[in-house]
């Protein structure tokens, strides 16, 4: 996986997960879901792959996932069984900071 761009949509190669990039660091990001590299939202996943047991906590619709450095943020637009990770380190759920409704 190469450099990620804000607004790009990616899908998991092994489960139903889809994400949109909200923020990304410069440079290459080794982003995986369910243990397999994520692919472009319109790409066909390679055959024969399945969710790796150590990356099977699942993703939740509408939740945001961040890396430890805080410079990568993904929005889950379709949930699935795999977990998101970069270079083997699982991304964590970002705490929502509620704002008052304004419109």
């Amino acid at each position, binding site marked *: 996986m190469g450099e990620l761009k804000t607004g790009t949509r990616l899908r998991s190669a092994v489960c139903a997960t889809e994400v949109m990039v909200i923020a990304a660091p410069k440079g290459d990001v080794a982003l995986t879901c369910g243990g397999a590299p994520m692919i472009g939202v319109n790409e066909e996943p390679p055959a024969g792959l399945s969710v790796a047991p150590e990356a099977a906590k699942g993703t939740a619709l509408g939740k945001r996932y961040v890396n430890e450095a805080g410079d990568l943020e993904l929005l889950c637009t379709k949930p699935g069984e795999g977990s998101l990770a970069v270079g083997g380190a699982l991304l964590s759920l970002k705490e929502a900071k509620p704002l008052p409704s*304004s419109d």
Partner: protein
Amino acid sequence: MNLMMLLEMAASGFGERAAVTNGAQTLTYSELFRAAGAAISRAAMLDVSSLALPIGLFGSAWAGVPFAPLNYRLTRSELEALVARITPCYLIAASDRVEELTGLPETTVVPRERFLERTRNPADADSGWPMDPDEIAVLLFTSGTTGAPKAAVLRHKHLVSYILGSVEFGSAPEAAAGLVSVPPYHIAGIAAIASSVYAGRRIVQLPNFSAEAWLELARAERVTHAFVVPTMLARIVEAIGDARSADLPQLQALSYGGGKMPQPVIERAMQLFPGVAFSNAYGLTETSSTLAILGPDDHRTAAASDDPKIRRRLTSVGRALPSVEVQIRDESGNRLGPDERGEIYVRGEQVSGEYLGRGASLDADGWFPTRDAGSMDAEGYLFIEGRADDVIVRGGENMSPGEIEDVLLEHEAVADSAVVGIPDEQWGEAVAAVVVTRPGCSVTEPELQAWVQARLRSSRTPQRIEFRDALPYNETGKLLRRLVRAELLGETP
């Protein structure tokens, strides 16, 4: 990036929940999603709020074409000039406007009911929506208090960024219902659709605002949230009259914006709605709605404080959203410090600052000059003092009309006031005021001049004060200063 992504998420996350109610009709998120797939066309809309509004907005997004809600108060000749800028166009119109609109060049006029009929039992759309974040989502003709209307361009990236930066997906409980009473051609009307869908909060539409209808609908639909412009809140407060409470037990949150809120109105509203969380939102059409919010806690803290610096925050628009940066700059573009007055500049993914055919007015670093004058205190609370164009320059001294108006309003006999600059041979501009007195009260020009002089510098004392029965406002509560000025000078605006 496309607005449809927000609706798709809502339809898959809670598709059977009610999304929008108009009168006796309700659409679920799944129904709205399917209707949007059937509604493909380049769409404009000349109508009050109806179910056709969210369908038209998302249907245009699905088709990858701009959606342009038009002001239904305009006459045919005014509309002709607007429509000419967005043709070829599929114009969804209230049925009583259809006949009047036939014959507009390159325009297909469709009555609302026929448009809704087409979307009622749609076949599944056979294509997805475009993903280009730079496609235009919405064109909004700005109210043009200073001249000819311009079409503000909001691209998918602006609106989606605004929603992702300010709303948590599915955060509304199932019983949540937001009353939308602003017209479709107001940015708050568009923003309300996108944020409600993403939050999972049912939209309750009020097509024609009156305070009585608003109160009745809020009760009948068990409304939990509402957004109002200051004029609406003033009328609601007036309609409730002497009652001790507004009797809307479900109402949890009331947000207001779109113009300056008179302090007596907000204070009375806080008494009438004691359990309600008030938020003041500041935003512009060109910034995809809200830039800053004075939240419920800010309201309570300010109202309860004896410290004038904290109490004054009740007249601020709060602090910038986390995804928005704000700076105050002087006329040469230099950044100013806390409490210094200048022009408000904003930056963020939601900021478009673009007008159709004129390009974006952002600087090289992405900052947008709002043309609003104001200041920010050391804690980041933003105070708006009106349009930068309204600043009066008297003998080289800049003064904001808002500051003088506030002082006039503190006088017990004054119900409303407007301060404008008028040409003056000696000073370049002179300060003039038009005042509306409270029923049963009277006050003279010299008394008010002495009142201002005692509280502000003498240069800020209006050299001319006239009395009127009412001031001119547009329908969303913006004071039309150019009309005040023209009338004072005996000109036709």
